[in-house]
């Protein structure tokens, strides 16, 4: 499907006529930077990268692509971990990074309208001091875009209490592959008709290109507490997680780091984590100041009942306080910190029912030992969303083989215990082969039918998410990835 050189020249000229020559990249040396995102196993150079600055330009671009039968794929900051922006078959990459305006902030009606290229943390900053915030906070929030968050229905540590991206998107403007502009939802509550917004969030770019997003604004909590619970073993920590949820406490965040992860993070940031602990939990509550002490006591009691102790308690009024920022920087940059221990690593993204956490962690450790692979764990414990990190050396083919086997065994076990193979990173191209394990052929057929309504020619984000009758691609390397 890749454009031939003569059609490519024509394509580039027509794109330049739409957006202007400064908003098109067509030189090979510059295109290679766009051959992959945070997923490095598969790479493919797009034929051209185009930077629209308005919905009208996006419409003209997709119409052109559809007319020429050229595949196209949207891209935000390229922090995705599942290859969602891989230009399969080459074609046109539509970079939304020049559509980066915050169009409206309406505090009284609690919404904001943004363009897709707005970086998640820019919105946080723009709202700073208003008493409101945009709740979904993926660990890559300092770089990833709202458009990418909508495409992958991103999670993040605070989604335990506040919900994931789909719970905070009130409406979108989407350009369908035929150039039709559709507006779904809107700032008002309770739209009649089908919940198209809910359908579009998490479409991984397979329905069209989102050009405007109406996001919900959440009131800042009056106060909060962030605790560091220290445990001798991973199992004790996971039991405490179950205990906290069972006590009907809904923490704002509930994160776990095991010993190898604690050591790596401490080496990188020096926050003051106990490097001999088997595991730590970062437990956060927020709400009315009056409720905080009571919840703190209840949490401390549960931590202690499971053999742990509360080593640190940060009492905060805003999320800007330095110690608060320090503990979360350690957590959110944890994947990258592993880069200091191992030349290459592979982060998996699985989900299990919370009660199965002790089991899956025992399983992961056993798999790691059996394959001779070092494993570190850092994850959203409250959601049962695990992120085992498998460390290896990419120069050793045997280690690569073992890491792939170990990864597949872990993900298969997640499915076996009633979970899934991705909590927040998405399917992309990486996990397409697991889809038939998760869904029946009828389920998959229903999804394909739905995609065909929006994207009948399959040109938009070609060969993503749902395997289209083609055999699974055999992976030869697990790649290395660094954020979640």
């Amino acid at each position, binding site marked *: 499907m890749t454009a031939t050189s003569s059609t490519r020249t024509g394509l580039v000229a027509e794109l330049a006529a739409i957006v202007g020559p400064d908003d098109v990249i067509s030189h090979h040396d510059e295109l290679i*930077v766009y051959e992959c995102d945070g997923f490095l196993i598969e790479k493919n150079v797009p034929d051209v990268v185009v930077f629209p600055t308005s919905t009208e330009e996006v419409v003209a671009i997709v119409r052109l692509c559809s007319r020429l039968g050229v595949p196209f794929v949207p891209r935000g*900051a*390229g922090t995705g971990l599942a290859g969602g922006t891989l230009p399969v078959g080459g074609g046109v990459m539509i970079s939304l990074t020049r559509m980066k305006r915050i169009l409206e902030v309406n505090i009284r009606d609690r919404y904001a309208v943004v363009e897709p290229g707005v970086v998640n943390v820019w919105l946080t*900053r723009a709202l700073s001091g208003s008493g409101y915030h945009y709740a979904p906070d993926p660990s*890559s929030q300092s*770089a990833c875009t709202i458009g990418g968050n909508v495409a992958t229905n991103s999670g993040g540590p605070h989604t335990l209490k506040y919900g994931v991206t789909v719970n905070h998107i009130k409406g979108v403007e989407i350009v369908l592959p035929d150039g039709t502009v559709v507006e779904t939802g809107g700032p008002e509550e309770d739209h009649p008709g089908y919940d198209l917004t809910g359908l579009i969030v998490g479409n991984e770019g397979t329905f069209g290109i989102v050009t405007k997003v109406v996001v919900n604004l959440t009131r800042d909590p009056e106060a909060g507490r962030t605790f560091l619970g220290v445990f001798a073993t991973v199992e004790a920590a996971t039991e405490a997680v179950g205990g906290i949820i069972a006590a009907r406490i809904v923490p704002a965040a509930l994160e776990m780091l095991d010993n190898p992860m604690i050591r790596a993070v401490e080496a990188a940031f020096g926050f003051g984590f106990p490097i001999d602990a088997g595991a730590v939990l970062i437990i956060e509550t927020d709400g009315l100041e009056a409720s905080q002490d009571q919840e703190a006591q209840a949490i401390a009691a549960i931590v202690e009942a499971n053999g742990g102790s509360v080593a640190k308690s940060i009492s905060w009024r805003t999320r800007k306080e330095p110690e608060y920022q320090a503990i979360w920087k350690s957590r959110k940059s944890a994947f*990258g910190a592993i880069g200091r221990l191992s030349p290459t690593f592979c982060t998996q993204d699985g989900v299990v029912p919370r009660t199965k956490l002790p089991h899956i962690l025992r399983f992961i450790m056993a798999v790691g030992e059996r394959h001779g692979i070092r494993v570190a764990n850092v994850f959203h414990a409250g959601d049962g969303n695990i992120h085992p990190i498998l460390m290896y050396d990419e120069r050793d083919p045997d280690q690569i083989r073992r890491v792939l086997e170990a990864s597949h065994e872990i993900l298969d076990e997640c499915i076996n215990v009633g979970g899934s193979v991705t909590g927040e990173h998405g399917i992309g191209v990486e996990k397409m082969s697991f889809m038939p394990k998760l869904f029946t052929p009828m389920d998959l057929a229903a999804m394909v039918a739905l995609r065909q309504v929006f994207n009948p020619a399959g040109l938009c984000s070609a060969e993503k998410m749902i395997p289209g009758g083609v055999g699974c691609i055999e992976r030869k390397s697990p790649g*290395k990835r660094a954020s979640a």
Partner: protein
Amino acid sequence: MSTTSPTKISDPGIDLAWLASKIPYSHYQECVHCGLCTASCPTYVETGDENDSPRGRIYLMRAVADGRIGASAEVRHHLDLCLDCRACESACPSGVKYAQIIEPFKIALHASAQGDDRPGWLQRIILHHLFPYAGRVKLALLPARIFQRIGLLDRLEKIGLMKLLPPTLRRMQAMLPTLTGSNAQLPEVLPPIGPKRARVALFLGCVADAMYPETNAATARVLQANGCEVVVPRSQNCCGAIHYHSGSEGMAVDLARQNIAMFDPDQFDAIIINAAGCGAMFKDYAHLLTSPDHEAARKFVSKVRDISEFLIELGPVEPQFPVPMKVTYHDACHLCHGQQIRSQPRKLLSLIPGLELVPLEESELCCGAAGTYNLTQPEMSEKLGQRKLANITATGATIVATGNVGCILQIARQIKTAGSPVEVVHPVDLLDQSYRGPNDQGVKS
């Protein structure tokens, strides 16, 4: 599906063997391609093109090192556009040593540059014949000083005659602050006020000393007020940063050797610098100098301190006189990213009675000064400068403080062009005011 070409290109257009000797391949591999650096990069934030992001630049440099692509005009453009502000190093969780990749790369690019990519004659004269000699910078500014005094520069600007100057010189002229008349040399030794707490050497810098000699005098006074005996070694040199960052490594190495000889670390408790760019360069000497100079460089580096860093370590004497102003603080890249100094200048400012310190949005985003960047990449420099001034204006502060002469020049020019009432100063200028009070004048010797 992978299109990584197994065949290497025939002419890389750059000295790959030299690059390999300067940049261990593991430096490239440390980048795990997570992209968390992108939004911290001023040029990427402006262009949205990943070729202008740290991750993208590392990808380009690795591709050149691999022989996959050559040092083409496109590659050169994206690498030249890098400010070397090192914001990406602060953002990188993996600890990628970005500066240690881009800096040798820039040296190799300059060495292999042809035609339009070569530095202009004016830039070469400035680099090789002006900056190494602090005295010459002062001398070169003498005509400008006199013209300014008699109002000739303004008049020339009004009648458009300035347009006849080469563009580089015009931009330099626009950056000139109002040069103060008094340019008296600081005494070689200044005594401490009160009991002696430390003996320190003061580095004056070339641009700083020529443009803002008052800030150097203020630094000396603040050190005296904190019980320091201040030694100002004669015949100091340029730190070499401008040379190193524009690809003239040999010159930078020579200057480093001379400075290490001039500031004997055994004689001083600390070597004090008030310009972030020079401080970061001094602290990099051990990386710059290999054997047999490496050990001496390491010893020298262990004594180098930014003025704010030193005062906080020493325990600052509380300043007494109120400076009732609303002040905001801009993080100079080579302080916050280059030296990880963020809290110290803010702590010092908040010691000043009556001073209200307000936070600055995007305080860690480069202002576009970046050494000679404002001369070599005027368009991007201008965009970043305007962005910085807009953020400063939004704070409502009447003063912006920043710990680097380059930033002061850049922001001052933005202020002048925009006709803004804001003033830009070094934090020690404010501290000095608070130690001296309204009636005290001059250097205590």
